[in-house]
């Protein structure tokens, strides 16, 4: 199937070929006319030179006659002008008729006749100058001069007739070429009109169908484009809103990144101070460890002394048991002595008193022994409690000493970790600054995107407007095509 361009090109090519043919023929006719006109002009120039030649001869003869008659030199001006210009005219005629042998031959005769005439005029002028009028008239009356002029007129007449013949012939040629060109142009133009009309009709009929179908497609496409542009405008508006929100969020993110960078910087600073404090704490812990070891030695000594005290109090308890037993036995003996004294009657009264005092003393000793036992038991309990507490303290001190070692190791680890923390915080600070820079770039990019989204929104509106215009144009085009088809 031929495309629009091919069809239109074929139609225009046919019209162009016809116009080219007509133009060629017209050009050829015009060229022929121009050449003919040029030759005609040339012929007119030749005729003008022939007339000039005859005129110059007449001027020379007129001057010769005036001088002869008047004998004044002022009448010789035409003569001199004719003598001076005649050779130039003959030379121009010879050049103008160089392609015409007949005219060249006649020019030879003209040149001879002109030379003879000028010689005759010169003789008569010289004669008039030397002699009188009458002498000069006698010479003129010989008719030599007239004969030269008649021959000259005869030859120039032949030349003029030939040139007139040539002019007539060329006029006929011009007429023939002109009529042929007119005929060619008229028929060619008519033929071209017919061809262009037929091609236009065929192309119009062909294109109206295809263009109509295409325009309908364009119309449906423009409707779809309108719908798509609507969606695009809506999407672009949503994108612009989202980009605005993203820009706000990124701004907040940027502020947060800056806060993080500042916090990381503060963390690094605090970590450095903490590392210094940890080193100081390490020294303090070392001193405390020495102090704890000293305390441990003192506590061990206290434990030893308390154990000795416990043993001593146990020994005191044993002695107290003996004392208690002795007081009990003394009490029993005193009671028995009292019984015996009561059995002895009056003689035993004083003994009974002594026995009673001994019994009372034994009672008091027993009571005191019980109190002292309670006290000793309290001392032993206190010693045991103290020993247990001291042993617990010793264990706590041991544990504390071990924990001090662990604390020292932990402080060293803390120092190392603080170094790592400082480095990490600095890395975080650096990374966060880079992140902030990146976020700034992203912010700029997002701002550009937001701007682009707004431009897209505007562009979508324009697209929507253009789609509407396109739909209108499609309807208009369909209307035009249908109108053309119906017409």
């Amino acid at each position, binding site marked *: 199937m031929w495309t629009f361009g091919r069809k239109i090109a074929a139609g225009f090519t046919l019209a162009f070929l016809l116009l080219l043919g007509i133009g060629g023929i017209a050009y050829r006719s015009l060229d022929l006319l121009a050449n003919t006109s040029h030759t005609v002009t040339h012929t007119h120039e030749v005729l003008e030179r022939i007339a000039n030649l005859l005129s110059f001869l007449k001027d020379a003869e007129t001057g010769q006659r005036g001088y002869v008659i008047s004998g004044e030199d002022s009448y010789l001006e035409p003569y001199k002008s004719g003598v001076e210009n005649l050779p130039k005219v003959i030379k121009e005629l010879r050049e103008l008729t160089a392609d015409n042998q007949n005219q060249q031959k006649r020019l030879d005769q003209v040149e001879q006749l002109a030379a003879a005439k000028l010689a005759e005029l010169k003789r008569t002028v010289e004669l008039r100058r030397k002699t009188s009028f009458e002498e000069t008239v006698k010479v003129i009356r010989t008719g030599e001069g007239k004969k030269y002029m008649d021959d000259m007129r005869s030859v120039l007449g032949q030349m003029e007739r030939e040139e007139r013949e040539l002019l007539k012939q060329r006029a006929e040629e011009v007429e023939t070429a002109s009529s042929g060109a007119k005929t060619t142009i008229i028929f060619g133009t008519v033929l071209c009109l017919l061809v262009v009309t037929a091609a236009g009709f065929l192309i119009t009929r062909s294109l109206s169908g295809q263009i109509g179908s295409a325009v309908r497609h364009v119309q449906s496409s423009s409707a779809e484009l309108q719908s798509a542009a609507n969606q695009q405008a809506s999407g672009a508006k949503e994108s612009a809103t989202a980009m605005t929100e993203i820009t706000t969020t990124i701004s907040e993110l940027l502020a947060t990144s800056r806060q993080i960078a500042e916090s990381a910087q503060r963390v690094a600073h605090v970590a450095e101070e903490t590392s210094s404090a940890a080193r100081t704490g390490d020294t303090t812990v070392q001193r405390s460890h020495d102090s704890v070891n000293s305390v441990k030695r003192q506590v061990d000594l206290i434990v030893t002394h308390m154990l000795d005290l416990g043993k001593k109090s146990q020994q005191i308890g044993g002695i107290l048991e003996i004392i208690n037993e002795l007081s009990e*036995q003394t009490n*029993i003996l005193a*009671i028995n002595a009292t*019984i015996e004294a*009561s059995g002895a009657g009056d003689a035993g009264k004083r003994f009974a008193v002594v026995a009673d005092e001994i019994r009372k003393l034994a009672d008091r000793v027993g009571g*005191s022994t019980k109190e002292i036992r309670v*006290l*000793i038991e309290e*001392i032993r309990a206190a010693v045991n409690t103290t020993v247990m507490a001291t042993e617990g303290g010793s264990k706590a001190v041991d544990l504390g000493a071990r924990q001090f070692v662990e604390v020292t190791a932990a402080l060293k680890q803390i120092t190392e970790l603080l170094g790592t923390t400082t480095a990490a915080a600095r890395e975080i600070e650096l990374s966060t600054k880079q992140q902030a820079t990146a976020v700034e770039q992203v912010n700029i990019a997002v701002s550009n995107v937001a701007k682009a989204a707004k431009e897209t929104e505007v562009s979508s509106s324009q697209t929507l407007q253009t789609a509407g215009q396109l739909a209108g144009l499609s309807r208009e085009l369909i209307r035009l095509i249908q109108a053309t088809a119906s017409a």
Partner: protein
Amino acid sequence: MTTISLISAKAAELRRVFDQARAVPSSTGVEVQTESLLAIRVARDPYAIRVSEISGISTDKKVVALPSPVPELLGVTGLRGAIVPVYSLAALLGYGQETGQVRWLVLCGTDEPFALAFSGFEGYLCVPQAELYSAEQKDVRRTFVTHAARATKMVRALVSIPMLREAIQERCRTSGVPKEQ
């Protein structure tokens, strides 16, 4: 005040009381009639024994058990060069045999001596006669108890040793066991 100083003060007080007792005259002129008692505890109940009714007190004596139809008889022991029967005071008073160690013995009588064993001896009491009451007055109705004494803010039942002697003799006669020497 520390414990050591307390003990030192207690020893000084004992010394002072003893010296003072020896320094005052033996008689103040006005004598108050008193009764010497031994404060004992039987099955956690407070009792008392008249010193005038016993002939001695001893402790931690080895008691050799003997087979006997009298359940209150714990065995025999050696006191003051003689072998005497030992009876459980708690069993005689109706409490049954005491479970704890019975380390105190009181010797009763001189012609036909016997010993009473009990677990708790609380001390020697010198009670005015005015503080002695009949058992009915203090509503102390127990066997072998005729009187009660109030001492150290406590009422104690007075065990009658003669009544116990008669009861032991009666039981020995009814059980067919010859009297112990």
